[in-house]
């Protein structure tokens, strides 16, 4: 079983972001970077599949500047077998261009299963996996929270707003991973040492012309400081008054 997992390097979200003077990028000073949350779940799920089967190979792929090699090494340290960097130094706002470059690498790689995160926590597009599936001509099951592979068929459960779908598709297939499948393990020292010896290839990314262009980034208006209206249940009448008269939501 050959599995490809596409992983993206993103900043840690637990900060107050600043916009760079260009107006089109985040000020990266002082930011920490790691694999996007859902991509971590995907790598773990892929590694667990090969462990369960006792066979198979997990290839992690990341599109970006050389800094993504660090993210790829991390995936190798938690059990991926080999890594590919699709090198491109400038940021890309066109999700179709990203998907085209990833699909060009995956195409012909002989993968049985191709995994993506449900969304990247920075772009929040939720599009790359589905775009790639279509470009690869593979069936897609998106945002799955449970995954089984039986006799060459993926059986998955996915969550809709307030409902579930049970979905099946024959391999080779593309899946995008939601929370609930697996939490990534921490890299062990042994894993980190082993990762240094695993293959990491760098190739130029093949990008089409971009037709979705980033014009600017802005911070949303700050919330005005709120107020404590009281303690205990005696504060409820005042809350009701404010909800009615001030916030007008009741």
């Amino acid at each position: 079983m050959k599995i490809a997992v596409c992983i993206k390097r993103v900043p840690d979200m637990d900060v107050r972001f600043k916009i760079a003077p260009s107006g089109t990028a985040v000020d990266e000073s002082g930011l920490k970077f790691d694999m996007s949350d859902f991509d971590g779940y995907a790598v773990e799920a892929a590694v667990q599949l090969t462990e369960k089967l006792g066979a198979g190979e997990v290839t992690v792929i990341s599109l970006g500047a050389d800094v993504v090699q660090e993210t790829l090494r991390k995936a190798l340290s938690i059990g991926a077998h080999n890594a590919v960097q699709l090198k491109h130094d400038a940021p890309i706002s066109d999700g179709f261009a990203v998907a085209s470059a990833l699909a060009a690498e995956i195409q012909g790689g002989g993968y049985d299963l191709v995994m993506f995160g449900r969304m990247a926590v920075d772009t929040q597009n939720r599009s790359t996996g589905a775009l790639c599936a279509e470009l690869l001509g593979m069936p897609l099951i998106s945002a799955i929270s449970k995954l089984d592979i039986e006799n060459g068929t993926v059986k998955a459960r996915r969550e809709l707003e307030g409902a579930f779908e049970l979905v099946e598709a024959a391999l080779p297939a593309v899946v995008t991973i939601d929370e609930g499948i697996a939490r990534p393990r921490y890299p062990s020292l042994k894993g980190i040492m082993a990762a240094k010896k695993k293959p990491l290839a760098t190739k130029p990314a093949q990008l089409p012309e971009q037709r979705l262009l980033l014009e600017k980034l802005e911070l949303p208006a700050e919330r005005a400081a709120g107020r404590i209206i009281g303690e205990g249940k005696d504060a409820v009448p005042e809350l009701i008054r404010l909800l009615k008269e001030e916030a007008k939501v009741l």
Partner: protein
Amino acid sequence: MANIFAFAETRLGELRRAGLEAVTAARRVADETGGQVHAMLAGGPGIGAIAAKLAAHGADVVLVLEGDAYVHYNPEVLAATIAARLGSGYRAAFFAASAQGHDLVARTAAKLKMPYASDVTDFAFTGDSVTVQHPGYTNKIVQTLVLKTPTAIISLRAGAVLPAENAKTGVVEAITPAMDPATARVKVTATEAGNRGKLDLGEAPVIIAGGRGLKEAANFSLVEDCAAAFGNAAVGATRAVTDEGWRPHADQIGQTGRLVSPDLYVACGISGAIQHLAGMRTSKCIVAINKDKEAPIFKVADYGIIGDVLEILPVLTAAVKTAKASG
């Protein structure tokens, strides 16, 4: 004048609010740029009855794909059929940025070899380009993007456009699928309605959310009661709660759960971890009830009450009932 397409999402035979939002958005653009609104519906036998609602919201033409093959969501057939239609020349196409909409819009765009604007909160059509707003970085940054494609394909975040009536004739046209549904490789074998009849988190004007401060699963009945008192509320939860199994994962709000922005968000026994705030900080009015006056949730709350949520919530529920009864 080029026409505007809207996909009206349905589930288990019912039209979803997101469907009306897409039609309303399409109508708005058609009124500005000219052209007709073509709204598409797909579902099991009888789904065509929904066409009247789409007409009331501005559809000039309602394209209906009806039959047993469409009882469950059938993304491959839908994407193939929609892409074939859009290929004949539409200025724009609107979809819902919902669980189903997300992959339908992406597959459609990829078939047309075009980028699209995902999860859009606002849009403007000027000349050849379309400018959109899309929140990113766990909603902490708003991105302004320009889409330069002949057809502007857009998925709309829930609530970005409010459904509005603007009645048109809504000529019904039965359409044929662009591929045989029997050859679809992805099969939805079941759709289980988790909380049928209840409001979805993405659509509810009010959300009552509970955290670990509720102490145990059984106490979520207090949250349910409060939501019922509002009448237009859904119940949400933190990851601490869904991890404990007190509520299903579908109820989780935050960075790795649902992103919501209701008119009113009541956080009960929730500390306000950054990953939780990521999912709800854009709510219009936030109320927090927490026994710890230092809890970070109070920093984003418009109104805070310090105290035991188990004691305060029933009083709040009773007060809301009284307030609703007196109009």
